[in-house]
């Protein structure tokens, strides 16, 4: 399946290669570079590129291209999904997935890649199995290894590999047993010029951090499970229980994992927690444009809208801006024409605004499209869909775990057309 993997950085250097079958010359990446040149933006490189003898499937994450070389028919999503899993694993191991981190830990990276694929077919991608095979590098462990001469590599087959619950290793022990769940919902919306909602939907995830001793069996039930329209589960969730009772019953993996992602049914009206008043005009013939933006909260159920960040890609004709924020800071990059305004918290009494002028290229005609405004925000302690966890029970172990649940609403792809 996957023949080789090349890691290419933003400047086009191949800084790591790994082959699972016989060696494929790195010159195969020339086809990739060609496609990269043709694409105007880094994101526009097509994920699947055919070459005379191979196929290149690539993903772009953290400004690194992960290019897999394929020789014969394989579902492209299979490869894409795997590559993303590789990135996730790196992130898990090194905290960040950057060129420097990969270069620093090249041996661990190589050991990981060796375990993740055998002959191009995924072998172990489950993070807890990998962690038993290859221990993540920490400063402490490096020290200990130097002194004792022990290694980072496990000698035994990971316990998860053979069990019916491959995602959990046995013999987990904690002094403080705790299980935290974060219900995070994201609002994807497109708001049109007049402020009416064109499309809005809520996507949610439940991320869990479970640190429990032994083999706990958890059940999580919701007050209003009907809200969940389409769900996808971590493999640990028992699908039949969900189908029958709408209860999440699972033996959790150890540590952090995504338990569930869901989509709130589109029938429900989505509350839009912020509104934007905007007045962005370019006048014909003049080299000045007006920029006027005010944000305000609505339908927030009394919760504060925090960490608001507004960004907008201004038209190419804009040379510079002279704006005045009522709060927060704004930056404008004259090269990329990206305007960002870090607003912070919205105070309902004194609405934040950003007003001023834009100077346009002299003689250039007026841009025909007004920029789109992207907004990010966070609202703590609220799930905008109204989803509520009813209770969490633990079976199979005797101790009493500490349980916690947190709700948060965020903006996903929240765009305002102007």
């Amino acid at each position, binding site marked *: 399946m996957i023949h080789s993997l090349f890691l290419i950085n933003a400047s086009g250097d191949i800084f790591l290669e790994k082959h699972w079958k016989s060696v494929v010359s790195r010159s195969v990446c020339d086809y990739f570079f060609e496609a990269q040149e043709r694409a105007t933006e880094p994101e526009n490189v097509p994920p699947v590129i055919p070459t005379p003898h191979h196929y290149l499937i690539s993903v772009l994450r953290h400004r690194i291209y992960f290019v897999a070389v394929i020789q014969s028919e394989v*579902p*492209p999503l299979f490869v*894409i999904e795997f590559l993303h899993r590789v990135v996730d694993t790196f992130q898990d191991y090194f905290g960040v997935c950057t060129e420097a981190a990969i270069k620093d830990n090249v*041996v661990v990276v190589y050991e990981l890649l*060796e375990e993740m694929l055998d002959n191009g077919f*995924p072998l172990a991608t489950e993070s807890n199995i990998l962690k038993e095979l290859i221990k993540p590098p920490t400063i402490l462990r*490096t020290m200990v290894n130097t002194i004792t001469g022990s290694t980072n590599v496990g000698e035994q*087959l990971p316990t998860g590999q053979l069990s019916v619950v491959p995602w959990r290793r046995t013999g987990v022990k904690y002094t403080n047993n705790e299980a935290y769940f974060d219900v995070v919902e994201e609002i994807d919306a497109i708001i049109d010029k007049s402020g009416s909602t064109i499309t809005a939907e809520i996507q949610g995830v439940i991320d869990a951090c479970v640190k429990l001793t032994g083999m706990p069996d958890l059940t999580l039930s919701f007050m209003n499970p009907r809200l969940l329209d389409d769900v996808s589960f971590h493999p640990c969730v028992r699908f039949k229980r969900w189908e029958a009772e709408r209860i999440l019953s699972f033996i959790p993996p150890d540590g952090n994992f995504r338990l569930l992602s869901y989509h709130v049914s589109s029938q429900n009206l989505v509350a839009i927690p912020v509104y934007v008043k905007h007045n962005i005009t370019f006048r014909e013939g003049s080299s000045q444009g007006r920029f006027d933006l005010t944000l305000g909260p609505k339908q927030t159920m009394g919760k504060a809208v925090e960490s608001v960040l507004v960004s907008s890609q201004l038209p190419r004709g804009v040379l510079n801006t002279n704006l005045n924020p009522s709060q927060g800071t704004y930056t404008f990059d004259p090269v990329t024409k990206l305007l960002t305004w870090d607003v912070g918290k919205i105070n309902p009494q004194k609405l934040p605004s950003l007003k001023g002028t834009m100077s346009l290229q002299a003689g250039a005609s007026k841009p025909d499209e007004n920029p789109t405004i992207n907004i990010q925000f966070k609202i703590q302690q609220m799930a905008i869909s109204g989803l509520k966890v009813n209770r969490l029970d633990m079976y*199979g172990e005797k101790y009493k775990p500490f349980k916690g649940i947190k709700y948060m609403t965020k903006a996903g792809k929240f765009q305002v057309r102007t």
Partner: protein
Amino acid sequence: MSTSALYNDQGGAEPAVEAAQESAPTSAGSAAAFGLFSADFKKNEDLKEMLESSKESLKLDAMKRVVGLIARGKNASELFPAVVKNVASKNIELKKLVYVYLVRYAEEQQDLALLSISTFQRALKDPNQFIRASALRVLSSIRVPIIVPIMMLAIKEAAADLSPYVRKTSAHAIQKLYSLDPEQKEQLIEVIEKLLKDKSTLVAGSVVMAFEEVCPDRIDLIHKNYRKLCNLLVDVEEWGQVVIISMLTRYARTQFVSPWQQDAVFDENNEKTFYESDSEERKDQMESKPYIMDPDHRLLLRNTKPLLQSRNTAVVMSVAQLYWHLAPKHEISVVTKSLVRLLRSHREVQFVVLQNIATMSIQRKGMFEPFMKSFYVRSTDATHIKTLKLEILTNLANEANISTILREFQTYVKSQDKAFAAATIQAIGRCATNITEVTDTCLNGLVLLLSNRDETVVAESVVVIKKLLQTQPSQHCDIIKHMAKIFDNITVPMARASILWLMGEYCERVPKIAPDVLRKMAKTFTAEEDIVKLQTVNLAAKLYLTNSKQTKLLTQYILNLGKYDQNYDIRDRTRFIRQLIVPSEKSGALNKYARRILLAPKPAPVLESSFKDRDRYQLGTLSHSLNIKATGYQELCDWPAVAPDPSVRNVEVPQPVKEWAPSVGKTKQAKSDKFYSDDEDEKEEEGSDSGTGNSSSSSSSSSSSSSSSSEESGSESEEESSEESEKTSSDSGKSSSGSEESSTESESDQKKKKKKKKNIKKTLQKRNKQPTVADSDSDENGNGPVKRASSSSAESSSETDSEDSLDSDPPKVQQNKNIQVKSKPKVEKKPKNEVSLLDLDDFSPAPTSAPNSAYVSSSLLSDLEGLSLSNVSTSFQVTTPTFGPVKTYELLHHMTGKGLSAKYHFPRQPCLYQPSMVAVQVTLTNSSDHSLEEIHIGGRNPASLNIHCFNTVERLESEASVTVSMGIDFSDSTQAANFQLCTKEDQFNVSIQPAVGELLMPCTMTEQDFCKEQGKLLGMNETSATITMATASTSVQTVRKQVLSVANVGVVSSSQSTFHRFAGRTVSSGSLVLLSLEVKDSAAVLTINTEKSVVASMLLRDLKQALAQA
């Protein structure tokens, strides 16, 4: 730096080593240090020294640097001899790194690589499965042809390894060996065949991958494993799922007939109603069609559906394509939501998913129409994502939603991303041609765009307008005039060419403007692009033919210019046109037809989606993504006209678990049962549900084979019972006198023959008139233990449903024990036992012994120690059940139970321990990899709950199972009995909730008695309801079957065929429950008379459901 400390310790390290260490790859930004070749070379020298040193840590460090070199693509092959020496190192990390090195360079240094082989051969025998597996991995990854035989041997051995992990590795090794030496194909196929039979979920994915790589055409290998793969699918790791699903898609296409035959009926509108409907309803819909889906086909669809909820996008996509290619058309829409969900994922995932949706949406708009808004474009999307979304929106456009879509398109046209804006204009053009209502609107909109400032937008508009005008030129002179007006401002060649073409084509409609345009073109001809020049020549020719007076000179001028153009294409065209239009002696006949040739009416171009013919490729494949046939692409063949023999998939289902004591020998069976048995139950149920009138074809193998197994068990039990009689008689013979033994035996032999005949007769009889079984039974029950035993066994063998073999079998074993035990209390009789045995036949049946005997015959499941035959009041005659449906319920899932799983069913036998208890049989299975000890029942809730526990199971081996029986006093309520199932280490809370029908015991009575009793239970004690029955179920047999399947009651013989009566007593309090059912056509009146009104209402509800369903 951790290593520096090390070096300092080691005082004698050469300075060179230290220098090397300074720029070790583990430090950031060292890449530059390796830039120079000379430096590289020198480093390698140091590495060699380090590798040959005796210090383990030095070696490890050297290897880490070597791996760093490999990772950056530097050549480290010259270190091979130094590295390969370390292959036998004790240090596992060092060893692993050596493996990495070996796999990378063995191909180049074949001779040296051979040095390492013996190490691997040794490791293949290691007791540690992990070491065995990694040895095989590396051995098979060394691409050295000489070791092919060694690899082959290793693979064969590993394929039979006890550890599934090693077997998995061997499946991977198969592919490696095959790519190294395709000659080995035949032998490898044998290994694949063997591994396909493997029941481990770990192996399944890998071996199917090997199958796909080595012998994808050997579909015959799949037959026997098809059902197993379907059932295992949910538990296979996600990557394996993808491979298995795509293989099964191909398989299904060759084995089943098309479910799309009546699809003409299902048009888009119909589909919407199905969209929300549950799978059950859809199935009902299916039934009304003459097409009956092969149950195996259904099995595949059903077992893949939950995987739509997978977090792995590749799995979801593969299920979606499976549904697309295999499911009946109206079921395909179940995948929609999941596919739309994937759009939230990474950019690359979106890209592939959108491509597939684009192909799907061409054929089936309705599927994605409700999700139209999910395809709205955001300014932050990448361009290729935008264009794909546009494509889909265009595909989804119809009369109803076109206005929304066009409004959306208006925004897109103004996008800063001009390539995307251009694509939008094309999309508008497509909408305009597809939906005639909006053609004019679109056209006007496009004309407005002609005044746009951006050139690409204008150009694209012109091109699209040109195409649109071609479809209806007559009404659009104004547009053509407008275009002529803006012609000067347009610089994009394609757009200019399009306008020129339009002028030429419709020159008769704009007779004044066209020559003027030509005049302008003549001026700028030399400066134009080739494509514009060609169209200019074209325009000139057409004008010459229609309006030669005005344009003759112009045309000649242009033709002269063209004649000396640099481009040979233009020169060619000019020459051709001149010959065609300008009459001369040489031009001949063609000249006459010039007008007809040039001004022929031209068909309008069809604006089609670029995804139109993508569906020739299987969805989700690389070939589909690229729209080119990729190497190794396997065509998805068409459905066969006639389905190949479905029986090839039949597998001999192993006998269901019936061991009393755990037995290791049957682990395989236990295992197959453990995970999926409930699935199979479901399947069977469904098979019988959906197969109305066609049960023969839909009865799956499991039912047929299990029925055969029940036959087997029947004959077995007969044998056993005769053996039994022998034993008892001989036993008793012994106790009386040894000398009589021979005669006893011979006599009992004769007896046996007689009995056998009788048994057979009886069986036949029973088959014919099942309802009277109860009566006849009680009559003959007096015949003594031997007779009883045999009759009951005959009964169970003849009557039980397929599944009954499960409980009809183990009883027998105990039966004789019970009988022996039972004989103990009757001490006085004992000496004469033998005589009585012989004479019993002549005895008249003793009615008093009837209940007792019933107990004995049905107390089969108890364990011996627990045997306490309390003297029960026998005022009612309890009979053995006449119908034994065994519904198995799950008590403890193996996931919850850490490997211990438990299932229970109600054997419908009177409980041995206490008459007020309901007998429950629990099958415990150990699916973990270690044995479980001391399985017993712990605390119960409520504490007052009266449970007779089974004896502690001391030890349950891995993958073994054991069936135990227990008694629970439910006190005639359906409240669940909660208790703990404990092993040595763990406790699991479980609960048994009985169906109300299980709280009854059948009893026999005559019709008169029934009526008399019923008379006493009127008023408050009577509950009745009218039921609409399915027409198929009005026959006597089916009604009885239905009723008996719900409730454990006895049949009361009835004088009228439309009147059914059943009688039973509640187990705990012994209250009578009388059931009568009067059938009139398809309606029926069901009356229940009992003091227990709760029981009555619940029973009524259950029966109503059962009868209405049948």
